[in-house]
């Protein structure tokens, strides 16, 4: 059996006194697309943000590349972050910078590559998300879907080992959404990327998911392969696959 690339044990997350995640224990395996499912507000984004220490977990353990990150110092964690990409729900592009400069940030900060190589990499990443024409635009000139694609280009700028995507298909037309799925699969196969995705799009799940994690009210309800998820008797998971969307 493969060794997990991310290992979460008894993770508890709280906002003030409110418990968002209760004793979550789950392993994410390398070179797999793991999809986190669950109804709105069940803690999917919180789980991702706790793994990445954007929120400090209340208790429990999170290991990335076999290293405990909850107690890790900032410098050590920065090394981990340089191997991780994150696509935020709303893109989170820096509005004061052009799309080119947004994507250049991780490349300039974390590599010693020459300017011309960086420029080529940015052009390629933008071309992969069909946004080559927007290279000199600023985020406020882009539509919601374009912003999301530009943010994906930034997330994959460094060819990260692990890519986190928070609702990548939301707000995109079916064709763009499908091409995004193709890109995710291509990245997974070509760069041996591990991908963790929060999505509600059933079509997208069928296309890309290897493994499903299902959360309900902060608890882990299901953890298994896509095939297992389709055949499970757990009512919430069954309903999801029957109705298609929460």
């Amino acid at each position, binding site marked *: 059996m493969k060794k997990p690339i991310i290992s979460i044990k008894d993770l508890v997350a709280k906002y003030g006194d409110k418990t968002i995640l209760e004793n979550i224990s789950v392993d994410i395996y390398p070179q797999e697309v793991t999809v986190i499912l669950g109804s709105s507000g069940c803690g999917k984004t919180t789980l991702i943000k706790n793994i990445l220490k954007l929120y400090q977990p209340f208790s429990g353990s999170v290991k990335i590349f076999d290293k405990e990150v909850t107690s890790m110092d900032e410098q050590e964690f920065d090394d981990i972050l340089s191997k991780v990409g994150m696509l935020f729900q709303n893109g989170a592009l820096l*509005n004061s910078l052009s799309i080119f400069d947004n994507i250049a940030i991780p490349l300039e900060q974390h590599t010693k590559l*020459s300017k011309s190589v960086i420029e080529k990499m940015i*052009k390629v990443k933008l071309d992969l998300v069909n946004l080559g024409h927007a290279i000199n635009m*600023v985020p406020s000139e882009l539509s919601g879907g374009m912003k999301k694609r530009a943010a994906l280009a930034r997330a994959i700028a460094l060819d990260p080992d692990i890519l986190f995507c928070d609702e990548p298909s939301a707000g995109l037309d079916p064709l763009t959404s499908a091409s995004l799925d193709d890109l995710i699969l291509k990245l997974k196969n070509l760069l041996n990327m591990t991908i963790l995705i929060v999505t509600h799009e059933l079509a997208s799940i069928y296309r890309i998911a290897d493994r499903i994690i299902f959360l309900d009210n902060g608890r882990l309800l299901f953890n298994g392969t896509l095939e297992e998820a389709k055949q499970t008797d757990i009512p919430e998971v069954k309903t999801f696959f029957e109705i298609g969307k929460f």
Partner: protein
Amino acid sequence: MEYREQTLFLDGELTKYTVPALNDEFLKYSGQIILTLDLQKVTKIDSAGIAFIDEMLTKLKLDPNNSLSMNEMVEIAYSTFTSAEIKPVKVENKLDFFTQIGSNSTKFLQSIKDGLFLIADIFYWSFVGIFNKKGQRKGSVIQQALFIGVDALGIIALLSMILGLILALQSAAQLRQFGANIFVADLMAVSMVTEMGPILTAIILAGRSGSSIASEIATMQVTEEIDALKMMAINPIRYVVVPKFHAITICIPLLVTASTLIGIFGGLIVAVTYLDLSATVFINRVFEILTLRDAIIGLGKSYFFAWVIVIIGSYYGFNVKGGAEGVGKVTTQAVVASIFWIIILDAINSLIFYFNV
């Protein structure tokens, strides 16, 4: 990296970690004739590696179709990550000098037109809003009056007191030399009522409330809250701006009066402690020298200052461009423009009322 028979052989990993060193190594072969890049022994490659290959091809002026020898893995990666086939982005032509002047003039005229329409809208809806509260949130005027008036009173009082003390102290030093101590009362009364009280209050309000109005409206604009109000058939000026306009109109005379009285009180303290004047003499002199005209001019112009703060804050707020950065930008612009126009209005006021006196 190895060079043999006009071929450059690359092996091992070609990734973001190895490319910088390989690039330095490649420069050593810049004098050699290289016709082929052999990538058969490359074991790992990423997009940085492909960009490096493209970079080498460009520098060597080679055609990627017949100068690359790749294994299957590199071939797949190359077809995905090469920049060779990306069409260059069209760069829009820059406007020439005269077109630029024309474009800027049109924009300037448009901004004046927009500003005048906004002023008309604000005055119209503020007047209508006195009689018809429809389209306004209940209690919003009181809420705004508390923020603009009550919350600002402390800082205005403190600064007015300090200003009063400074003015009296500095003038007292001069007046003492001529035995004209009593005139410090004249100076304090006239300067605080006609100038310092209104302008100090206005500048504090421009910094405090002007910035808040601009940033609130700008944030509402970029987060589509203004559009949401429009879609609910609610006039955003009536809903957002009018309560602030009413609140500032109510608060400004009270704040200016407080500022003036506290500033004169600061002068009184200096007069009593430093100039050996009695409080009664000082106060009598203040009432003697002040005219109703001065008080009306002082309070009257403060209304214009207040309206300028709301109008400019709203104008910049509604005309925000971009996201978070735009909000910051218009907030700064609103404060600077408000203070500028307050001083211009003050100068106009002085010319009208004091030029021939």
